[in-house]
């Protein structure tokens, strides 16, 4: 039985553009199964539908069609059992200003009917570096600390399935390290983890399998290692002072002075370098590196550039 299962799930929102009745499919008939014990990454640009999928799984949003389940429990028909199996770290940095950290965790624990949970709460506080903040009011915490509490709240009822929606957005390196160590430990203990993140190096390091989402549809789904193998194996990277000719620039990924070309062999590398030289520019700090998940991601997104999925008109 999959830990998480989406069956042809869709979510339509009314579109602010176009005539009345125009709808926009934020998620477009997605089917996906995540097995127990997996560390799964859901990647995609902003607006791809990642958060909508998670919201449908968590019962925050109702699907327009299709269904989702957590460990075999349908998230709508059997919502209470589905939610007991699920711990969700929301993307927004939200908190209840009336309570301190320990109170917030005890209350969250109580919602799930978990009694005498102080030992686990202490363990969570310790593992997330919150032990000295247990009696601090939520208002007094920094953004990073609030994020840690959100993670603790999601885990307080020991859910077998953990969903993290961009948990490291805008947080410091220390928290990222602490968080990933802890989540990786939970994953080793058998918890299933579904992660969305913009930090592709995190996904590459942590996730055994990855789905890439664009315009509400899955455009790539495979083991991380297979995705990396399928991409161009090397990347030529250098710096230039000046603009590349348009034809050359179209093949490159350019970030300020840094230019990167996907290259499969020495011939291609020679070709790019000579093209740069012929355009009167000098390539500096030249290096050839292995392709990473970011290259794969950009390749996949570029291949699906013309995608117009997701726009429709309701009858």
């Amino acid at each position, binding site marked *: 039985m999959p830990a998480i299962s989406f069956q042809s799930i869709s979510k339509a929102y009314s579109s602010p553009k176009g005539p009345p009745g125009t709808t926009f499919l934020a998620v477009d008939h997605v089917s996906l199964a995540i097995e127990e014990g997996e560390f799964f990454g859901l990647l995609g640009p902003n607006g791809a539908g990642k958060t909508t999928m998670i919201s449908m799984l968590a019962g*925050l949003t109702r699907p327009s069609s299709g269904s989702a389940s957590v460990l075999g429990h349908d998230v709508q028909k059997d919502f209470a059992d589905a939610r007991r199996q*699920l711990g969700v770290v929301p993307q927004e940095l939200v908190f*209840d200003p009336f309570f301190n950290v320990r109170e917030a965790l005890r*209350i969250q624990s109580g*919602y799930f009917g978990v*009694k005498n949970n102080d030992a686990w709460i202490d363990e969570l506080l310790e593992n997330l570096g919150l032990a000295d903040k247990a009696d601090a009011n939520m208002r007094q915490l920094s953004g990073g600390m609030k994020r840690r509490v959100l993670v603790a709240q999601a885990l307080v009822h020991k859910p077998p399935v953990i969903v993290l929606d961009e948990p490291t957005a805008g947080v410091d390196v220390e928290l990222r390290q602490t968080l990933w160590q802890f989540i990786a430990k939970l994953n080793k203990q058998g918890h299933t983890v579904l992660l969305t993140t913009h930090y592709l190096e995190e996904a590459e390091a942590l996730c055994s399998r990855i789905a890439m989402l664009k315009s509400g549809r899955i455009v790539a789904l495979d083991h991380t290692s297979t995705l990396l193998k399928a991409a161009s194996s090397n990347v030529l990277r250098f710096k230039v002072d000046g603009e590349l000719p348009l034809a050359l620039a179209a093949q490159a990924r350019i970030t300020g002075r840094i230019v990167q070309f996907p290259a499969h062999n020495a011939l291609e590398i020679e070709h790019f370098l000579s093209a740069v030289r012929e355009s009167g520019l000098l390539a500096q700090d030249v290096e050839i590196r292995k392709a990473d998940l970011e290259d794969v991601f950009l390749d996949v997104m570029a291949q699906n550039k013309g995608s117009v999925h997701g726009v429709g008109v309701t009858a």
Partner: protein
Amino acid sequence: MSGLQTLLYKEMLRFWKVAFQTIAGPVLTAMLYLLIFGHALEDHVKVYDQVSYTAFLVPGLAMMSLLQNAFANSSSSLIMSKVMGNLVFILLTPLSYWHWYVAYVGAAVVRGLVVGAGVFVIAAFFTHIGFAQPWFILAFAVMGAALMGTLGLIAGLWAEKFDQLAAFQNFVVMPMTFLSGVFYSIHSLPAFWQGVSHFNPFFYMIDGFRYGFFGVSDVSPWLSLSVVGLSLLVVSGVALQLLRSGYKIRS
């Protein structure tokens, strides 16, 4: 504690942590009304023969405070959680719509009763008030608070901004409570306004509640009990339906 008990406890803890604002403040306001209106009108107004005007005022003021605070509790809790986004902590739990209803309305009833009792206890220092029909007092207090807690829940679900809620409070709840016979008997009104008052459910809550103290009322307490009970059933049905459909909380 079960999930329902936890939500109820959290909702009560929320107002208890700011008790100065949620309990002491409303009690003080009611006391000021009592002192000023009682002092100004004691010798000029006589509503019931055996009852002084100050004594007449106390149940009305206690009920008015009870109703307004029951409404304020559920509505402000919901709108704050919606605006701050922390409602998600409850939305992610296995709690059913029935649990939500019982916890939010239950906490509103408790706050309403605490404020109402506070008004009554302090007012007892100023004037003597009897308990002619204690069961009516209890029934109207609990049902009135539940009715207003439920209305607050509906308003809290509906409102998206604080000013929408304030509009509901200032333009619906306040006028209806003030015009319900807190400060006067509707028999002192012109015939037309007497008729209008009979369409105000707040009038029945206050008239029935006052009957519990004095054994006299403008209309039969059984009629009042029926109107309040029926109103509670109707608004509860609406609130449960809104919660079940996830109105403005689950997209």
